[in-house]
C-alpha cells in the first residue's frame, strides 16, 4: 500500500469539511475520486499534500506518516499535486514554472529528460516557453499545471480536475497521458468531474458525498452501478 488515509477529519475554521475519510492507493494504481461539487475531493487532496492539516486522522505514504510533515517536505517524498484551478505562477514564464516543478529535484539530467518528455506531451508549452503563464489561455495553463507537477518525477501524482476547461481533443490527450504516466510507473489519484472517462481509465474508484466516502469499488463495477450512473454519469443525454 503506497498511500493510506485513515479516518481523516479536516476543518475550515470551525466547519468540518471531511468527516472521517478512509482510502488507500496501491503502488501502480490509478484511483479516481468522484463526487458532486463541494463533496470534499479537493480538500482531501490538499490535506494529503500537507496544505491543510487534519484535525484528526492519519496519512501514511510509503510507510511514513506524512500528515505531520509540512507541505514542502511532502513534495520531497515524491508526492506531487496538480491543483484545482491550475494555479500556475502567472508572472513567471512557462519555463520558470516548469523549473519550479523540479524545485526539490537533485538529478539534473533526469530533470532535462522529463522536460523533453513534457514538451513532447504538450508541444504548445514548448512553443510558449518564454511567455508569461498568466497570459496563456485556460487550456494552456492546465497543460502547464500538469507539466509542472510531472517535473518532480513523482511516485504518486494527485490530479485535481485535470480536464477542466480543456478542448475535447486535449481531454482525450490528457487521459491518454495519464494512462501513459501511470504506465511509466507513477501512481495516480485522479479527481474528475468527467466521471465516465475517469472510471474507464482508473482501476478503482471512490465516491464522495458531503465529506464522506460513500462507495468504494473497482472502476468497472462503479461504471455499472446504477446509482453511480444516475448521479454522476448524466441521465439526460441520449
Amino acid at each position, binding site marked *: 500500500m503506497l498511500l493510506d488515509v485513515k479516518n481523516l477529519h479536516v476543518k475550515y475554521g470551525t466547519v468540518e469539511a471531511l468527516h472521517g475519510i478512509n482510502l488507500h492507493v496501491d503502488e501502480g494504481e490509478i484511483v479516481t475520486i468522484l463526487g*458532486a*461539487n*463541494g463533496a470534499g475531493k479537493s480538500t482531501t487532496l490538499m490535506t494529503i499534500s500537507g496544505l491543510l492539516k487534519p484535525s484528526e486522522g492519519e496519512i501514511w505514504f510509503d510507510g511514513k506518516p506524512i500528515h505531520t510533515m509540512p507541505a514542502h517536505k511532502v513534495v520531497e517524498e515524491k508526492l506531487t499535486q496538480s491543483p484545482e484551478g491550475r494555479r500556475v505562477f502567472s508572472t513567471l514564464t512557462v519555463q520558470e514554472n516548469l523549473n519550479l516543478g523540479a524545485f526539490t529535484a537533485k538529478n539534473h539530467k533526469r530533470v532535462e529528460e522529463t522536460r523533453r518528455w513534457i514538451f513532447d506531451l504538450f508541444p504548445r508549452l514548448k512553443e510558449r516557453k518564454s511567455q508569461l503563464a498568466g497570459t496563456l*489561455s485556460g487550456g494552456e495553463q492546465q497543460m502547464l499545471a500538469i507539466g509542472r507537477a510531472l517535473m518532480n518525477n513523482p511516485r504518486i501524482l494527485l490530479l485535481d*480536475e485535470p480536464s477542466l*476547461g480543456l478542448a*475535447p481533443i486535449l*481531454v482525450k490527450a490528457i487521459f491518454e497521458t495519464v494512462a501513459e504516466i501511470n504506465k511509466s510507473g507513477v501512481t495516480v489519484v485522479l479527481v474528475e468531474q468527467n466521471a465516465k*472517462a475517469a472510471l474507464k481509465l482508473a482501476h478503482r474508484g471512490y465516491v464522495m458525498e458531503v465529506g464522506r466516502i460513500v462507495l468504494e469499488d473497482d472502476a468497472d463495477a462503479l461504471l455499472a452501478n446504477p446509482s453511480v450512473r444516475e448521479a454522476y454519469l448524466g441521465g439526460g443525454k441520449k
Partner: protein
Amino acid sequence: MSLLTLDNLIKDFGGLRAVDEVSFDVEAGDVFGLIGPNGAGKTTVFNLITGNYVPNQGKVIFNGHVLNGLAPNRIVSMGVARTFQTIRLFKTLSALENVLAGCHCRMTSGSIAAMLKTPFQKREEKEAIKLALAELDFVGLSEDVETRSDSLSYGNQRLLEIARALATQPKLLILDEPAGGMNEQETDALIDIIARIKARGITVLLIEHDMSLVMQACEKLVVIEYGKKIAEGLPEEIKTNKKVIEAYLGTDDDEEEEGETCF
C-alpha cells in the same frame, strides 16, 4: 436582422494575433456556440464584445449600435450581459447581493435619495430585490439567497454568475464555459436552464468545451482556431467537419456505444 454582428475583428497582444479577422452574425433568439481549441481566442472574442478589450481593427455591432470603444458597463446597460471563464463573484457578499449588482444598471436612485430614503427609492429597492429573488429562483438557488457567495459550491457559483447576468435584463447573454467544473448531472441541469433562458427570448452566445452541452443546446456554431474562423454551421455539420475534428474534437477512436458525446 441579426442581433450581434462581428465584422472582421482583430486583436493583437504584443506580437501575438489572438483574434484574426473573425466575422459572424448571431440571430436574435438563437443559442449560438463558439468553440475551438484552447488558446484559439474565444475568450478574447468575448472580451472584445463586452468592452473589456478594444479591438485593433474591425467592428462589433449590437442591435444596430457600434460597441467599439464603449466602457463595459455601458455595453451591459445596452443589453449585453456576461459571465466569466474564471468565476468572478463578489466573494464576501451574499448571493442576493451579487444578483442585485446585476439589477444596478436598471435602477436610478443615487446617494442623496438613499440618505433621504425617498418613497421612489424604497419602491425601487423593493422591486430590485423581487427581481433578484426571481432570478435566483430561476437558476435554482432559492435556498442560498443569504449565503456568502464564496461558500457556495463551484457549480452553484457558476449558476449565481448566470443569475447576476440575467438580472441586468439582457437581450444577449454571453456565457464563457458555463459548464466548466460541472459533472454530467449538473451539466444536464444547466442545459435546461439555457433552454429556459432562450424561452425568455434572450439570445445566448456561449463558449463551451463540453460537447454534450454544445450539441444539445446550440442552434448554430462557429469554430475558431489560432484566432481564425475555420468553420461555421449547424452542430451536425460541425461534428463531421474534418478540419474541426482534426483541430478540436479529435478522431473518435472511442469504441463505446454512446460514442461521440462522451466528452
